[in-house]
């Protein structure tokens, strides 16, 4: 609470500063921009004074505000995929203008990466920010026909994928836990279904996605590499609709409509795979009858508009993967997944001050239940958050866009835990140690247009993390064995970390079509994901900062040149970045998992750095659209206790990454699209030598990540067809071919041993490269009522 007061007093000082500076007469033009048909808020729509660079963008709730000197203005409202609306406004008092933009559905759609205002990429003081609209990625190729925003994000410069087909992403040399993924402001801790092959984001339920890979605004905190902010659809507040699709492995259905017309709407969307149903006939006959796998998602959202000043939203996500295995004497089910819930209240104090209050709950849970004869075992791990935040947007002057707020989270970490039952005897080992933490942040940022040419986006975030009890800290003697412990009571302070995180972006326009942007970011991250696997799996465990584990820290510097050609039809940029990471975690050498251990005793700590150059060419307008991105990067890690202290490449250190996305609108109904990816192979630690112990071949490994798999390349194509608009139904088809030249990309390498020591005359070891996805055609039928 103290923080809120501090924040408000800071704000009032700042405010009084402005009122003196901007004492001349100005009036505020504000309002909401919405879709004329569905009433959905349009995020980041541009509102500009014609023929000037003065203007604003709508915020996450479709609200805009700007202050102008009195006079007559032509205001241009525009948004990708919508018709531009120009309105004459006579400004002689504070004025509210709400605009409903009609969709340009039947004209040529610009595809994928949005350009709100044609030269926004050059003239905005945003760096490393990309907005993706789901509508526009639906025509692109998708594996098994499942449209996935995460797969498109992996094609942007500076962003790359992990192993083949997975939807995890790695930003500028950062780890998978360093991305802040938000679904309606709730943190999502595990974004993958089916070991990451599909993301948890059901494209039908998603309205808008924003990625920040650099120049992270101060309103976001807690991660050091990137922010992926995903917003769910609000639902049509004018009429009822159903939409959905039937695909090769999953089907989707979305219902939306008004609760109270024009005031309130709902959206509910579900998706389920049916691999289990398809495989059932084969499994029933085998001895694994009862085994299967499926996943499902549910998204729901409702909102109510009380007045122009107040609006509330409730939204939630629930998704589970369920694997079951059954044979003669073993029965096992493994469910895992996320649940999130968000309650929001938007309030407009006046035309210049907008407030959003959130109460958020999220939960990631992994579980394994197995039973064999009389013995049952249950293993589980997870993380739960309770989160509250208040954010303010303040528009004191057309040159300023100010944001400030507070954020508080209570974390409950559940490390890998086991309970077991033998007959009717329950066995609960005492060493299951939950961990608890308070995380909080307070921030202030100002996007300030200093002059026609110079714009500054400066912010600061002060963050804090406190580990609290109940907790039992085991102390280890010099023999490495536990010899004492300290017990902390519930809520008792254990360790606090805090830090001041400055963020700065500077934009200097060279001319109307080109600019230079520089940015600096310092971020702290108080939670860590640890994995003993080569890839991220649902079994990976989140741990908090503690006495032993220090927060991760990231410094990022970037500078870029942005230039548009052909009347802003072609956007290009070149960006250089350098990033350093501190307090990175790995397992110590010789670590083998053991039950209910305190994982942090097995950690070693190190640093990382990444540098790179990114080229980007994007064409957003016309029949032919798409982009090319190329990244040259070097990413290393340094751990005094690993690889004999020698710096080694990060697993996803990829020298070259090239992505091409192209889409061509053949006519009103047919669209042809394709993607191409080339990436340097991922690094792995090669076996170098072998020796024999008790007749077994024992491996001697070379230097960490000292070898590379073969380069990865793949092309996909798709053809989409939009059916004629009939009275009740409109349908469409998407035909995709994944990996259409059937390249056998390396997925992993394993070694096959032939021969038995001292029995067979020879023992040979042959390395085998396994490829995962061959050419995969798929077809999806989509419909809309």
């Amino acid at each position, binding site marked *: 609470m103290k923080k809120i007061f501090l924040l408000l007093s800071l704000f009032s000082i700042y405010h009084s500063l402005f009122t003196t500076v901007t004492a001349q007469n100005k009036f505020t033009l504000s309002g909401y921009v919405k879709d004329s048909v569905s009433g959905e808020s349009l995020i980041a729509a541009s509102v500009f004074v014609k023929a000037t660079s003065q203007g604003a963008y709508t915020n996450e709730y479709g609200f805009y505000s700007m202050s102008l000197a009195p006079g007559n203005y032509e205001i241009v409202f525009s948004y990708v995929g919508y018709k531009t609306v120009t309105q004459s406004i006579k400004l002689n008092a504070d004025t509210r203008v709400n605009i409903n933009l009609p969709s340009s559905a039947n004209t040529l759609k610009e595809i994928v990466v949005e350009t709100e205002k044609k030269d926004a990429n050059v003239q905005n003081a945003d760096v490393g920010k990309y907005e993706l609209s789901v509508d526009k990625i639906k025509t692109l190729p998708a594996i098994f026909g499942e449209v996935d925003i995460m797969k498109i994000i992996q094609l942007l410069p500076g962003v790359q994928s992990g192993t083949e087909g997975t939807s995890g992403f790695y930003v500028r040399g950062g780890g998978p836990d360093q991305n802040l993924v938000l679904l309606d402001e709730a943190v999502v801790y595990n974004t993958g279904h*089916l070991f990451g092959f599909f993301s948890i984001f059901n494209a039908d339920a998603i309205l808008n996605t924003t990625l920040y890979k650099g120049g992270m605004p101060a309103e976001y905190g807690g991660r050091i590499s990137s922010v992926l902010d995903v917003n769910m659809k609000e639902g049509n507040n004018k009429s009822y609709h159903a939409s959905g699709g039937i695909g090769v492995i999953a089907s989707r259905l979305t219902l939306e409509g008004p609760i109270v017309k024009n005031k309130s709407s709902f959206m509910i969307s579900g998706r389920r795979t049916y691999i289990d149903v398809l495989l059932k006939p084969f499994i029933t006959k085998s001895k694994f009858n009862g085994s299967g796998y499926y996943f499902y998602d549910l998204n729901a959202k409702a909102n109510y508009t009380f007045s122009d000043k107040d609006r509330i939203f409730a939204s939630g996500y629930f998704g589970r993967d369920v*694997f079951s*295995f059954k044979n003669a*004497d073993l029965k096992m089910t493994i469910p895992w997944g996320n649940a999130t819930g968000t309650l929001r209240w938007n309030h407009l104090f006046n035309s210049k001050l907008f407030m959003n209050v959130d109460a958020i709950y999220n939960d990631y849970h992994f579980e*394994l239940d*197995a039973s064999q004869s009389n*013995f049952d*075992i249950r293993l589980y791990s997870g993380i739960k958050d309770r989160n509250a935040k208040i954010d303010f947007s303040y528009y004191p002057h057309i040159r300023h866009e100010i944001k400030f707020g507070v954020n508080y989270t209570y974390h409950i970490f559940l490390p890998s835990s*086991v309970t*077991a*039952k033998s007959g009717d*005897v329950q*066995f609960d*080992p005492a060493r299951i140690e939950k961990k608890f933490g308070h995380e909080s942040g307070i921030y202030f940022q100002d996007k300030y247009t200093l002059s026609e040419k110079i714009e500054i986006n400066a912010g600061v975030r002060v963050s804090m993390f406190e580990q609290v009890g109940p907790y039992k800290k085991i102390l280890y003697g010099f*023999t490495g064995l536990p010899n004492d412990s300290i017990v902390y009571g519930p809520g008792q302070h254990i360790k606090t970390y805090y830090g001041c995180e400055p963020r700065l972006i500077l934009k200097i326009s060279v001319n109307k079509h080109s600019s230079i942007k520089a940015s600096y970011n310092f971020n702290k991250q108080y939670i860590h994901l640890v994995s003993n*696997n*080569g*890839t991220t*799996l649902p*079994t990976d465990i989140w741990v908090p900062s503690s006495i032993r584990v220090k927060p991760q820290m990231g410094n990022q510097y970037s500078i870029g040149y942005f230039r548009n050609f052909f009347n802003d039809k072609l956007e290009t940029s070149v960006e250089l970045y350098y990033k350093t990471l501190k307090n990175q975690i790995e*397992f110590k050498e*010789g*670590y*083998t*998992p*053991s*039950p*209910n251990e305190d994982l942090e005793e097995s950690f070693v700590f190190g640093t990382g750095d990444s540098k790179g150059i990114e080229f980007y060419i994007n064409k957003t307008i016309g029949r032919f659209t798409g982009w090319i991105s190329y990244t040259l990067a070097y990413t290393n890690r340094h751990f005094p206790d690993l690889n004999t202290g020698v710096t080694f490449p990060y697993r996803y250190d990829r020298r070259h990454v090239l992505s091409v996305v192209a889409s061509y609108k053949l006519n009103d109904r047919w669209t042809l699209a394709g993607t191409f990816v080339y990436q340097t192979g991922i690094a792995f630690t*090669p*076996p*170098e*030598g*072998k*020796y*024999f*112990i*008790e007749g*077994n071949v*024992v*491996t001697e490994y*070379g230097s960490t990540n000292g*070898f590379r798999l073969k380069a990865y390349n793949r092309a996909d194509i798709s053809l989409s067809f939009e059916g004629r608009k009939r009275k009740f139904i409109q349908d469409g088809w998407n035909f995709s071919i994944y990996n259409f030249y059937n390249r056998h990309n390396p997925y*992993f*390498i*394993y*070694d096959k*041993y032939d021969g038995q*020591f001292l029995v*067979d*005359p*020879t*023992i*040979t*070891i042959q*390395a*085998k*490269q*396994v490829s*995962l996805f*061959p050419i995969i055609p798929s077809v999806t039928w989509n419909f809309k009522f």
Partner: protein
Amino acid sequence: MKKYQVSIIKYNEGIKFRQYSFYCLLITVYCLLFSSCEKNITIDVPKPPDKLVVEGFVETGTGDFSKPYIVLLTKNSAYYSTFNLNDINTYFVHNAVVKISDGTDTITLIELPFDTAGIQISAYVGFGMIAQEGKTYSLHIEADGKTVDAVTSIIPSIPLDSIWVTYNEKPDFPDKVRLNCQLTDPPELGQYVRYFTKVDTESFLPGLSSVFDDALINGTTFTFPLDRGYNRNDTSIDFDTYGLFNKGDTITLKWCNIDKSHFDFWRTLEFSLGSQGNPFSSPLEVKSNIVGGLGIWGGYSPSYKTIIVPQ
């Protein structure tokens, strides 16, 4: 009480089970869903520097169970090179100076040819110094211009209280029996054990997971089932009857207390062998106690228990 203690061990197994079952699951799902494809490739890794590989043990025992000091000395080789039995002698290091000291006395081992299943190998063997519990033994080897050193302790033996077998563990296999044990663990933490089993007149074989520590069961009296030992290279291990013995078997259990670094060696080695071929595991370097080389110099203080299972 008994059931409770069985749970501890099962629960230990549960952890491994979690690891492996999850990998199995992953691979099964991949195979079910996607027609993956594999091909032979050549990985052109540099040959590692030559190292001496020690497999040497010092073991207490008298009478039938008395053992000489035995050290096998071999060399590492390039990982993807073919191992040929005819060239086996090129893997053994000859003419080495091998010395063992208990702090007071020092003996020099002599190289002797051995015949193992018709194949001639050589080993360094030493006599004339009695291995004793509680003593520390250091090993010093000079060969091929290299020197390696290692130290191991013989931990006082803590024999099992008793062993017995249980029947009808698997209704489908009525001839199979499970071996069970009871142990009283001393109050101090930090006991490490390696075990071997022997059926009839076969040789002693370690369990696939042959080492334990007392982190979870410290200071308690507990009972637990123990899996039969196997030759890991034996490809005929049947999953359905894994770990069980047969009616009519004469089972001898060798139960050895070992020191921490000896335990760490087998812990990492067995984990590494268990995850061989698993693409999702991280490479794990086996923790050796040989300074300047690879392998193990380990002390054992075995205790034995025998049970004859009726037909």
